[in-house]
C-alpha cells in the first residue's frame, strides 16, 4: 500500500502521521499541497495542524490548495481518504464530507485523552475493533464541535456513516459525533488523533487498531 500524507502550509501533524504509517510498514510519503497529482497512491491522509493558520475558518483556505482537486478525484475513484483533525475540517469545507466543525461549545483549545465508542465496526477504519468497544484517543482542538442539520444527521445515522462517537462529549458535537465517513465509506474524517496513540513508549496504543483496519481494508480490496 502506498500512502500520501498531504502537507498544507501550517500542517503540523504531517510527520506524526507519516511515522505512524511507517510503523505499520506502509510505504508513506509527504506530498506538498502545492502539487496536484496523487495517481500513484492507494490512500491519502490529510493530517492535523493549522493549515494557513486556520485563519478565516479552519480548513477554509486549505480547501482551495492545488492538491484538493487531486484529492477529490481520488475520492471519486474510491480511494481511501482520511482527514484527521484539521484534515477533517478541510474535508468538510471541501464538501467531501457533510457538515462543519464549529468552535467548541466551551470556547478554547483542549488537549486531552478521551474515550471513543466504536459506532460502526464494519468500516475500513474500525474493522479490527469490536462494536461498542471503547478506546482512549488524544484530542487537541479548538474547533471540533461537529455540526450538521437534522436531516443530514439522520441520514448519517441511517446509513451507518457515524464511525466514532465520544463517550463523554468534550466539545458539543451533535449526537456525540467524533468521526464520520461518506456514503461510499471511502472518505473519512475524525477530530481525535489516532496517530498519537500507536507507540507503547507514549503510554497509549489504542490507535493501533485504526491503522490495522485501514491496512486490512486495502489488502482485502487489492486481493479481491
Amino acid at each position, binding site marked *: 500500500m502506498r500512502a500520501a500524507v498531504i502537507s498544507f502550509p501550517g500542517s503540523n501533524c504531517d510527520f506524526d502521521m507519516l511515522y505512524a504509517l511507517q510503523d505499520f510498514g506502509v510505504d508513506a510519503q509527504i506530498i506538498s499541497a502545492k502539487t496536484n497529482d496523487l495517481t500513484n497512491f492507494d490512500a491519502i491522509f490529510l493530517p492535523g495542524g493549522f493549515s494557513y493558520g486556520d485563519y*478565516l*475558518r479552519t480548513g*477554509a483556505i486549505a480547501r482551495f490548495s492545488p492538491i484538493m482537486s487531486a484529492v477529490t478525484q481520488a475520492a471519486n475513484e474510491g480511494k481511501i481518504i482520511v482527514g484527521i483533525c484539521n484534515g477533517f475540517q478541510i474535508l468538510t*469545507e471541501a464538501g467531501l464530507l457533510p457538515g*462543519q466543525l*464549529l*468552535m467548541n461549545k466551551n*470556547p478554547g483549545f483542549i488537549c486531552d485523552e478521551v474515550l471513543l465508542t466504536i459506532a460502526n465496526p464494519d468500516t475500513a477504519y474500525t474493522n479490527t475493533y469490536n462494536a461498542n468497544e471503547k478506546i482512549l484517543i488524544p484530542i487537541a482542538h479548538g474547533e471540533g464541535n461537529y*455540526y*450538521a442539520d437534522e436531516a443530514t444527521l439522520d441520514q448519517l445515522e441511517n446509513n451507518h456513516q457515524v464511525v466514532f462517537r465520544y463517550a463523554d462529549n468534550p466539545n458539543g458535537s451533535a449526537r456525540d459525533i467524533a468521526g464520520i465517513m461518506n456514503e461510499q465509506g471511502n472518505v473519512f474524517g475524525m477530530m481525535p488523533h489516532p496517530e498519537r496513540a500507536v507507540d507503547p513508549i507514549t503510554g497509549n496504543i489504542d490507535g493501533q487498531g485504526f491503522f490495522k483496519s485501514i491496512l486490512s481494508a486495502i489488502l482485502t480490496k487489492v486481493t479481491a
Partner: protein
Amino acid sequence: MYLAKIYVTYKPSILDPQGEVIKSALHRMDYAGVQTVTQGKYFEVKLQATDVDSATAETQSFTESLLINQNTETYRFDLSLVADEVDV
C-alpha cells in the same frame, strides 16, 4: 476602487458559543440590559472593478466561495466607491 464592507453572521439556528460567553461576561459586569449577543465577522475588502455591477458580482462570488461557510453562515454587504490609493 471599491470598498466592500461584508458582515457575516451565523444563521439563527446555529449556537454561537462566543456570543454566549460575552453575554455572561457583560451580565457579570453589570450590563443588565443586554439581552442577546452574537459575534460575527466583518471584512473590509478593497477591489478594482470596472463598475458597480461587476464589483457587486465579484464580492458576492468570493464571499460565497471563500469568506463564508454556507452551512452555518449568512452575510450582507455594502459597496462604496473610494479613491485609489497611491502606495508610497
